[in-house]
């Protein structure tokens, strides 16, 4: 699993903590996953499960005052966590780039789209002013925006949400990154636009062979897009495997709950979506053992004593729940 040629990113035992009154709050605890060239990996879980922080840590952008406490992040064989800030910065926006949940707030409102695109192309792709403009128009065309010249002159507030996300994607693929980090890229968009953006990402991936690490709370988006899935809860990994296996035969009760909670667009005779009961976990007051206990339908006494660790690797479809076979 480590060091193969197709390996881009290998994350091991990643632990991210935030200082909190009365101790340390672990936003990510012992996260392990890999991203191979051209693959799409999904991190799924409810808000606050640590998936976004995990994503940001890959760029060295864990929000203050949080910090990575343990673990390793290997980027093409090179350890990044101990690398200098300068080395980390050279990867940002060149080999690894990122798109965000809310395209409205991640473009600077007081500069034109063209200004922000040209700036990125000049600083990060080393183009001259004129080349950068031409390239910016090509990129806008590539992400499916008509009249690129007009879009370059527009301010972000003059575009629709879908158009802004396309602009963000255009900026993020400007340097032909090997890995695109996508933090809930379709959550703020309506369903039609969401489909278009996902299709665009797949298309760009097919052309450039870039890998995508997709974070979403929406298992529907994840299963539609990803080859591999990592299910996170309260900063822990509860299940990991190939998308089809996880979706078809979920092993952890939490994953099963997520799948049952998925609304279906088609009208079927199947049962309506069942939401997972209870509240999202409070990271400051996690129970000992499995963090999902308070909401688990199959909870038993031993749940407080089990270690939270996958019983198998992603390739073998691991789960952190040892009571699968004995569930009634």
């Amino acid at each position, binding site marked *: 699993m480590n060091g193969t040629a197709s390996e881009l990113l290998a994350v091991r035992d990643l632990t991210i903590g935030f200082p909190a009154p009365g101790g340390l709050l672990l936003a990510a605890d012992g996260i392990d996953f890999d991203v191979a060239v051209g693959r799409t990996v999904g991190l799924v879980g409810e808000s606050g499960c640590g998936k976004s922080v995990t994503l940001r840590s890959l760029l060295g952008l864990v929000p203050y005052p949080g910090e990575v406490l343990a673990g390793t992040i290997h980027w093409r064989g090179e350890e990044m966590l101990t690398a200098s800030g300068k080395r980390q910065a050279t990867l940002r926006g060149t080999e690894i*780039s990122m798109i*965000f949940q809310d395209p409205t707030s991640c473009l600077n409102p007081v500069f034109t789209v063209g200004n922000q695109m040209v700036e990125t192309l000049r600083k990060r792709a080393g183009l001259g002013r004129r080349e950068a403009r031409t390239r910016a128009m090509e990129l806008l065309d590539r992400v499916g925006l008509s009249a690129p010249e007009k879009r370059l002159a527009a301010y972000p507030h003059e575009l629709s949400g879908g158009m802004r996300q396309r602009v963000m994607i255009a900026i993020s693929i400007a340097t032909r990154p090997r890995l695109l980090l996508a933090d809930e890229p379709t959550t703020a968009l309506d369903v039609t636009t969401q489909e278009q953006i996902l299709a665009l990402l797949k298309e760009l991936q097919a052309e450039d062979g870039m890998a995508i690490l997709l974070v979403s709370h929406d298992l529907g988006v994840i299963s539609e897009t990803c080859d591999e899935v990592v299910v996170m809860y309260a900063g822990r990994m509860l299940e990991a495997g190939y998308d089809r296996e996880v979706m078809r035969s979920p092993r952890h009760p939490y994953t099963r709950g997520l799948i049952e909670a998925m609304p279906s667009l088609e009208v079927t005779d199947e049962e309506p979506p069942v939401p997972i009961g209870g509240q999202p976990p409070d990271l400051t007051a996690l129970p000992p053992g499995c963090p999902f206990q308070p909401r688990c339908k199959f909870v038993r006494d031993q749940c407080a004593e089990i270690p939270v660790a996958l019983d198998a690797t992603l390739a073998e479809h691991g789960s952190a729940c040892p009571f699968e076979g004995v569930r009634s």
Partner: protein
Amino acid sequence: MGAYLLRRAVQAIPVLIGISLAAFLLIHLVPGDPARILLGAQATPKAVATLHEQLGLDRPLPTQYLNFITGAVHFEFGESLSQKVGVGKLIGTRAEVTLLLLMMATLLSITIAVPLAVAAALRRNRPVDHSIRLFSMFTFAMPSFLLGLLLILFFSLKLKWLPTSGYGSGFGGHLRALILPALTVGLYLAPILLRTLRIGIIDTLGTEYIEAARARGLARRLIIFKHVLKNSVIPTVTVLGLNIGFLLSGLVVIENVFSLPGLGSELVTAIGNRDYPTIQALTLVFGVSVVAINLLTDLLYSYLDPRVRL
């Protein structure tokens, strides 16, 4: 942007009319006959009649107002009652002093406030931030006449670098003479700007577009001085505009401490002499200037923030 500014300019017209009416009516709000009060109890009826004619008080009110406005457009406000010169001329030379003082003070305050605000915001709640806060509280809380006197004491009397008072001669002399008064005003204005800007920077640093800029790998300097600063300057511009308008009439004290022949000190003299034409003219000039400063603020605001150009 043009349409937006036009709308703001049109909105200013009723305000201007209001100001001109207030300035015009000043002389009529004095109880009794203004000419008699001006000339004193011993005045002969002939002298009173002459003054009536000179001030145009013998004509009907609307005509007087029309004459006042026509004169004001040409910057003519009749003759000063205490100094035998045209009020327009008198004010003109003094307006230059005040304008220059105000501009220097604003520039100085920006020069002081911007780097300090950036430093404080980037090292929030650390010793740098606390010392900057302490410094700004100190200069803000100190009455400006005291600060002015302290500056004179140190820079003029002890170090003998700068003149203690007066307006100097020649443009260079004027600038030199204005350094200390401008610094006094600037040190009052700077903390206001500094605080607004510091908060603005801190707010902007927490936005997603700054995170996105970092994720794109843009250099820290570019992010701070381009992306953060332009956004955080927007609220500061409003605060600056309001304060300059307020300062305009607040310069009286400073102009007196430094014996500067500005509008503020002229206003004090004119009020003391009951020089109504001059008071009227100054009221109009102050009012119109505040309106102009507000328009300039709007102009700057719409340049900085494309979202208001609707």
